[in-house]
């Protein structure tokens, strides 16, 4: 598995898309730090970019990478290696290169431009941690979609719709539901609904950490009330880790039974 990981990672490290992604985060972070003047404000703006953009890029890049390497995957499947090693190696290769672009893209300008207090460094690291988890989740979801759907156009469409649903539509439906049933106790429902969407979950988790009650909204407030700040963060992080494991295990399970 590690050999396949190593070469997938090297292959991606030389792809210009990896550099675009890295440069994008670097320019945005440098721009925010420079323009806002306040580190805390820059972190809040980054939060919004991270929770929406990382899922989108990880999903799209994941699906394109999986389809583009499908013939090569077939060549690897003909070698004396376990299927699981091949797919896990490729997944880790893509995840590591995306996560590295994102982490370095934010850390480099932060080190050179940000005048951080310790507390803000901790906030930034929390943001980087959540971004890394989102990369892992959406790369796994993209691989699962690509593996199940051999028709590339359909796969692409499903991937974009999945992102659109989780990033945009879900919140809308959620609010409509809350308004519709406002006479009923909805704490448990909103807790469950937040946990079921990794984007909402990461946003809530980050707002708890940044202690921004004003931006938390209903679900953040419920999370805070239900678990308290530290416990809320712990619960949300654990749920995000489960969100990595679920699609990844599903992907490996489908891969074990698939005809190539």
């Amino acid at each position, binding site marked *: 598995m590690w*050999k396949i990981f190593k070469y997938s990672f*090297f*292959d991606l490290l030389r792809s210009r898309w990896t550099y675009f992604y890295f440069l994008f985060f670097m320019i945005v972070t440098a721009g925010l730090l420079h323009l806002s003047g306040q580190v805390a404000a820059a972190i809040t703006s980054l939060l919004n970019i991270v929770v929406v953009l990382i899922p989108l890029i990880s999903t799209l890049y994941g699906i394109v990478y999986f389809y583009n390497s499908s013939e090569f995957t*077939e*060549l690897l499947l003909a*070698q*004396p290696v376990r299927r699981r090693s091949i797919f896990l190696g490729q997944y880790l290769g893509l995840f590591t290169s995306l996560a590295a672009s994102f982490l370095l893209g934010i850390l480099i300008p932060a080190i050179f431009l940000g005048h951080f207090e310790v507390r803000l460094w901790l906030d930034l690291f929390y943001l980087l941690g959540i971004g890394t988890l989102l990369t892992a989740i959406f790369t796994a979801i993209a691989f699962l979609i690509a593996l199940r759907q051999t028709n590339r156009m359909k796969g692409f469409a499903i991937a974009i719709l999945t992102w659109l649903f989780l990033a945009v539509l879900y919140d809308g439906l959620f609010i409509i539901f809350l308004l519709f049933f406002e006479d009923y106790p909805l704490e448990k429902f909103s807790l469950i609904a937040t946990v079921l969407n990794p984007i909402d979950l990461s946003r809530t988790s980050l707002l708890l950490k940044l202690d921004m009650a004003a931006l938390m909204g209903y679900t953040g407030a419920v999370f805070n009330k239900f678990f308290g700040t530290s416990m809320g963060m712990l619960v949300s992080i654990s749920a995000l880790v489960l969100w990595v494991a679920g699609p990844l295990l599903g992907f490996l399970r489908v891969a074990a*039974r698939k005809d190539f």
Partner: protein
Amino acid sequence: MINIQHLHKSFGKLEVLKDVQLEILPGKVTAVLGPNGSGKTTLMKSILGMTLPDKGTIEVRGEPTRHAWNYRKHLSYVPQIAQFPSNLTVQELLQMIKEVRQEPANEDPLVDRLSLQPFLDKKLGTLSGGTRQKVNLVLALMFDAPIVLMDEPTAGLDPVALLELKRLIQDMRKAGKCIVVTTHIMPLVEELADEIVFLLDGKVYFQGTLSELFSLTEKNTLEEAIAHFLIQRKDRTSVNA
């Protein structure tokens, strides 16, 4: 060397292989022929464990292949479409497959014979289709596996490389290897094949030597013999209809 018993495979409603029984022997070149969609690639992929059979058994050197992966060390495979990670160089790809297989490899003579020396440091994404096919051949043949499966190995090759491929196949036969080739190039089959397997609609329609095929069909060329089978099938389907 490869023993296939009652192999069935369907994709959805489409039955691709129907009760295939085959014994493929070492020291011989076996050509698997058949029209498009007759199940040639599925048969090869089933031997490799890439396609999982619905029913039936496949044994490679006496080892059952179901749920196994280590037996693939006895196999080398030249796939039909050669597509590689575009940002790696030829040299890096060769190194990667060597590391993955963890077996001794001897790529230098093959690189020389297929004139790949100038391309070793080039990125795979920049290579032409023919050159990629040569890389594909080196990747499979640099290991000393006793069984070599080649799916349309001539695709995109220039005449010089094609000649070299024929010599390579002859050398491997002399070395006692079991070689299975699918191709649509009939002169290549006539020149090289010791055994012909003709697949039609997922069934083995014929297995035997070239001369047996000619005497059975009362034809003198492979093209005519195959056309004979296809016409026979057409007649049969029209009678059934």
